[in-house]
């Protein structure tokens, strides 16, 4: 592992075994997080962002299970399940036990912040007590010192009048203040990695903006790495250094933030960027992605985006492209999972015949959507 790499995820697969069938929520994703960087994990609802985030800390409950892959954090193996040459699946001997995960990793080394702060705060205890107890346990401090540290952290994250607010209950805080408390809690043990799953999605933009500033400041100060889960390309552009774009359980593109916005190499990313209205420009017609994301329970064959892709060709229905580096010589690493890059994928995309999809023909597959039916749906 590169010395600057904090976390490395290889071919991670997480599935849910439901009555309707197996949901391949995360289906073979690989990425790494470097020291001090903010890595964005972006995608639409159901793409598998939250499952990926939780899998890193092994927080997947029944009927879900991590069924394959390797997660390494520094020297430690958080998860390791690999198929040997004989086809047998083996658990890595170095993989941490559940007790190790609880005691040494969660909260201490890797903290997680959820979208809904009430999920992580106990409504019957005061904010201060919860934070103090957390610090007391995880940093082995005395009660008094932990209390002082808790007040210090509350002030650090911008809670006004922290001495008094220490005794407030979670319901007496606004959503933005509760999210600040969770950030305080996440930072309290000075973890090297914080996983933030849509922490600002439920907040108003002025509050979101305050929180993003706070995170940027604290990140500089503590040199923490972040995995920032979001569906908002604005937030990605604002705070992320690198970005992974997810579609239907897979990472379809991975690049530095500027390259992703200015030189996207996957049709899904391109379409996503074209479909968003902008706050700083008047755009009269939006160019939406046609169709809807299929169910993860029964993903399309070949490239999973082929049912909606404007560039889809026959070969895309057969070959499922694994993300590859498609950068030119001298450019930064830029991975994309698209057969259009013939040099890297060699699937002879150029020679293949274009196919009709909801994006190319105006006819929807399955349930119709705009542009999916002839007649009235003539949106340019």
């Amino acid at each position: 592992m590169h010395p600057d790499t904090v976390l490395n995820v290889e071919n991670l697969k997480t599935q849910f075994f439901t009555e309707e069938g197996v949901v391949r929520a995360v289906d073979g994703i690989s990425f790494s997080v470097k020291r001090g960087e903010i890595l964005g994990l972006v995608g639409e609802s159901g793409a598998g962002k939250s499952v990926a985030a939780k899998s890193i800390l092994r927080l997947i409950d029944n009927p879900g299970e991590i069924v394959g892959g390797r997660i390494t954090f520094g020297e430690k193996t958080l998860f390791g399940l690999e198929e040997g040459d004989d086809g047998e699946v083996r658990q890595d001997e170095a993989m941490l036990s559940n007790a190790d995960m609880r005691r040494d990793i969660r909260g201490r080394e890797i903290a997680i912040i959820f979208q809904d702060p009430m999920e992580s705060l106990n409504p019957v205890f005061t904010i201060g007590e919860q934070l103090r107890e957390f610090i007391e346990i995880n940093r082995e401090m005395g009660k008094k010192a932990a209390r002082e540290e808790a007040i210090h952290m509350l002030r650090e994250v911008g809670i006004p009048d922290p001495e008094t607010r220490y005794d407030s209950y979670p319901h007496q805080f606004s959503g933005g203040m509760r999210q600040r408390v969770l950030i305080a809690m996440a930072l309290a043990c000075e973890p090297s990695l914080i996983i933030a799953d849509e922490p600002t999605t439920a907040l108003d933009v002025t509050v979101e903006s305050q929180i993003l500033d706070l995170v940027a400041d604290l990140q500089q100060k503590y040199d923490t790495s972040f995995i920032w889960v979001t569906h908002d390309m604005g937030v990605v552009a604002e705070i992320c250094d690198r970005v992974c774009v997810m579609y239907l359980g897979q990472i379809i593109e991975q690049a530095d933030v500027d390259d992703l916005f200015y030189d996207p190499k996957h049709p899904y990313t391109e379409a996503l960027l074209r479909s968003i209205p902008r706050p700083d420009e008047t755009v009269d017609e939006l160019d939406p992605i046609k169709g809807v994301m299929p169910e993860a329970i029964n993903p399309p064959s070949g490239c999973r985006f082929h049912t909606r892709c404007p560039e889809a060709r026959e070969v895309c229905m057969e070959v499922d492209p694994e993300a590859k580096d498609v950068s030119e010589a001298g450019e930064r690493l830029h991975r994309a999972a698209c057969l259009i890059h013939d040099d890297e994928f060699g699937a002879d995309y150029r020679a293949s015949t274009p196919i009709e999809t909801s994006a190319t023909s105006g006819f929807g597959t399955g349930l119709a959507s705009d542009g999916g039916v002839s007649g009235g749906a003539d949106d340019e």
Partner: protein
Amino acid sequence: MSSEPARSISDDDDDIAFGETLVSVENLTKHFTTGGGLLSLRYDATGGGFPFRTHSDRVRAVENVSFDIKKGETLGIVGESGCGKSTLARTILKLHAPTDGDIYFKGENLADLTGEALRKRRREMQMIFQDPQSSLDPRMKVGPIVEEPMKAHDIYDPDERSDRVRDLLEKVGLDPQHYNRYPHEFSGGQRQRVNLARALAVNPDFIVCDEPVSALDVSIQAQVLNTMKRLQREFGLTYLFIAHDLSVIRHISDRVGVMYLGQLVELADRDELFENPQHPYTRSLLESIPVPDPRVEGRRGVLEGDVPSPINPPSGCRFRTRCPDLIAPDTYEMSDAEWVNVRRFMRAVDRRTFTVTDRAELLAEFFDDAYPDGEAGDVTDRAIDNVLADEWETAATLLQERFAEQSICALREPSYEVEPEHGTNQHFAACHLNADD
């Protein structure tokens, strides 16, 4: 199949021309009373936990809001959660009784209408809500869902109705074959289309859309927004479009109103509002949005603190407790730099955001480039003494009473017309910075 309005709806007599006022809202106010009235008991946090009697609280959700909507246009209303957007929408449709003020539709005051006349107006005004799931009965098939309002208003023949449903499903971009499907068989974006079809079923003129795309993914949002624009052109619809997302508002609206704590603080043509905002709250909102472009610099969390309670809103301008431009009280002689420092100090004391051990440290933190003299200096001196003596409350009260509450922003409610830079339509801004003295 025909999409021509059926003969059975006769609204030919009162057609309003495009560009003429369709809806007019005048001084609309809606207050809610909470708690159990005079006998309700409450625990006062500062009163040692003793229950005491209190008057029922009055939530001033919408206060004195006025605007017109022209036929064929989209008026966007934007604001943060709790600012009164949904209450405004519901009060306009008379789903809430207004506390005060009037709503005119096609020139008629809705308050004066009863019986058949009111029913007819009700049919002409429809609403679409944020959550496409909860507004559709899960046990009903999509066809009957869309048909229901036609039945309720007793329009079109039974056979005509089902033809019309299929026609409408197609118009909103769904497959007419889906007549017999249940709502759960559709995605969120498709369910919102079903809502659109249902709203259109009774051939309305005016549709109030309360966060219609907020629950949808961006790519689906774009599809639904495009469909709404197309339907507007096709059916000559007028929209009141409520959203918290400024990008969506910029895309869909012809004119935009910004709400803060129950009041309309700014109203202007779309481009005028985004390119030439005159209210500090609008500017803060615009500066806060993350722009989906890594090369655009400059989003800053500019606003401090939280929105105050609508039960006891600040006097004068309701934004003044957070306004970065709060105007200096004219009772004192202060330079701009002095006032900027005093204002920052005042807010920091109020929110108790710092710790300090001695005067020098405090002066360095807040007053390194300018310190007020004269009476303003005296007040500041006393407040600093209080802080150093750990009497924060006293300091905060002193600063509030002697500075914040002496500002014109606290003394008078602002309401100004601004000369627009883009277009010629009215630009309203509720901020005293626009007073031309």
